[in-house]
């Protein structure tokens, strides 16, 4: 069991290295380099100065050596320097990360919890109204572009019925008391979270409904009933834990995509998260930031996957011993 965890973490580490290598080659492929960027900031410069600068940054060395240097640098936590923002990329990303995390995690938690409950309830009466509702809802969830949904929600709940603020994460000026500041942030996050959550909710309720229907046909459910257990006990003890396994797997696999969704939602709602940072950097061709965000997102996914695996192992005893 413990060895399996260590193995999982090691594999994660290997993946991190691979992402860094990929980043390095993308950086190589990108037009221009650090020196070009610096000179552009300074308003141009002569080739001699450029060559000197390149030598001082080690850019004249063989690619392999440069890659090793880059690898070491990133592993130390240094993702490079943004000339546009005039700030270290690591700090820049860490500064934008809390908003993104708040948004994605709350949307994901809402979607998984509610989605599972929806699915269970729908599966209990597979021909009922609610079950059909879940089917239709999930169809729309699949077909709606998240950024468009965000805009429509803004139109309705910020413009026509102005219940919530339309952009940003804090009011200007900020409230004095810390609790009011907290409420202010929550108020700003309601619409974006709702936007993101509703689409994931559609997906999770569909998956958990299908998985629940599957499990309800299993032999051990029949056994539980022949033992005389009450229906709630059959559903919530025997069926739910088994039905939740595919949901957990999916949630783990989808964490990366939640990140993608967050980029779009943050852009629509002008939240100061990683998304707009990435968007801005792409417009400015600020490659260290672009690749830094890619790296950060990948690492987040890797960590999330490890956590998912551990949760899964706790839920399914069959995973622990293979022999």
């Amino acid at each position, binding site marked *: 069991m413990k060895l399996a965890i260590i193995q999982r973490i090691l594999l994660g580490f290997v993946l991190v290295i691979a992402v860094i290598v990929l980043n390095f080659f993308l950086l190589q492929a990108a037009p221009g380099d650090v020196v070009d960027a610096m000179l552009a900031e300074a308003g141009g410069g002569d080739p001699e100065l450029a060559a000197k600068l390149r030598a001082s940054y080690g850019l004249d060395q063989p690619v392999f050596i440069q890659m090793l240097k880059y690898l070491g640098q990133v592993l130390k936590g240094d993702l490079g320097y943004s000339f546009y923002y005039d700030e270290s990329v690591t700090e820049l990303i860490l500064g934008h990360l809390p908003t993104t995390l708040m948004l994605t995690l709350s949307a994901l938690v809402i979607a998984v919890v509610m989605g599972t409950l929806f699915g269970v309830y729908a599966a209990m009466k597979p021909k009922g109204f609610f079950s059909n509702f879940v089917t239709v809802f999930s169809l729309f969830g699949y077909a709606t572009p998240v950024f468009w949904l965000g805009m429509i929600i803004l139109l309705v709940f910020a413009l026509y019925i102005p219940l919530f603020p339309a952009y940003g994460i804090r009011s200007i000026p900020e409230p004095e008391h810390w609790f009011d500041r907290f409420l202010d942030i929550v108020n700003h996050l309601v619409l974006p979270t709702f936007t993101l959550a509703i689409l994931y909710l559609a997906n999770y309720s569909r998956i958990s409904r299908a998985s629940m229907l599957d499990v309800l046909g299993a*032999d051990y459910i029949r*056994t*539980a009933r*022949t033992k*005389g257990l009450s229906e709630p006990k059959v559903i919530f003890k025997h069926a739910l834990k*088994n039905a939740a396994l595919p949901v957990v797997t999916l949630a783990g696999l989808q964490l990366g995509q939640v990140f993608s969704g967050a980029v779009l939602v943050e852009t629509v709602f002008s939240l100061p998260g990683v998304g707009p940072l990435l968007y801005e950097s792409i417009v400015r061709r600020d490659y260290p930031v672009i690749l830094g965000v890619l790296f950060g997102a990948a690492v987040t996914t890797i960590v999330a996957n490890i956590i998912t695996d551990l949760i899964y192992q706790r839920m399914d*005893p*069959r995973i622990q*011993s293979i022999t």
Partner: protein
Amino acid sequence: MIGPMKQDNPPNSAKQQTPQGNTALKVDNLSVVFDVKGKPVTILSDITFSVERGETLGIIGESGCGKSMTALALMRMIPSPPGRIAGGEVNLNSENLLEVTKKRMSAVRGKEISMIFQEPMTSLNPVYTVGNQLVETIRRHKTVSATEAQEEAVELLRIVQIPAPEKRIKEYPHQLSGGMRQRIMIAMALVCNPKVLIADEPTTALDVTVQAQIFDLLKDIQQKNGTSIILITHDFGAVSEMADRVLVMYAGFKIEEGTLDEIRNHAAHPYTQGLLRSMPELSTDHDAFRTPLPEIPGSVPDLINRQPGCPFGPRCPSATAKCHEMPPMVDLGANRSVMCWLAVEEGAA
């Protein structure tokens, strides 16, 4: 050894000593209908039988004959929709189980009637320990504390002859062998000493040597507790091993019923005769090697597009024009009956 005792030891044959009316379970005209594409299809037609206390009734038939459906109908666990119980009575303790409330029915399940299944691999919940699943059964039907239930669970495992029960109780189903899992299933079925134990192909998925162990265990339990067992199987060998009386099913009908001896030696229905003959048997007659086995031609009818008349008609070697009509159930006395025109003619002659 339980085998010989059964034959030599009169006290064991409890049902012969007890007076008449010692019926544990009585089933009358049980019918089950499934809706297939909006069309009602009769899966069970007027099944009638009874089980005495301490007796084993074997229900035998080919796949799709409705034997497992009978068991599920007794427990009122027909998947619905598409299935439903269309009529009949299931009497246990002068209570018609088809009419009691759902709540009462779930109290009866596992307490008065228990059931074990063919696939011990999939019949236990993989994500809970054996102990957890046993304890929840105990606490469902008895008001005991968690520790008492735990002790009782260990005791039950001991009864079903599982070595090191204190250790096993903490294990998950996937850590146990098939035979062990079936023992756990039996232990769970025994929690309240049920009057009736339904065993649906309990050994089909097990190896031959383990199969023998499970049958011995079931006989042992029956002898100690006086449980009535309904053994559902496709294997005449298993019926011979366990049953006192036999009920033969075909295409949702009970076609013959009688004591083991009568069915084995004097089967009246052509289907039963064919079934018995077509079975390869260990024989001491070594010249019988590779002599063609008598076969029943064709295969089980499709219940959806069934023709009227005797269900076995199309495959029956003795079929006549009369068999286009449904044959009646002919009573041949003392729990012996057969559904065939041949028996009607014999009775008339």
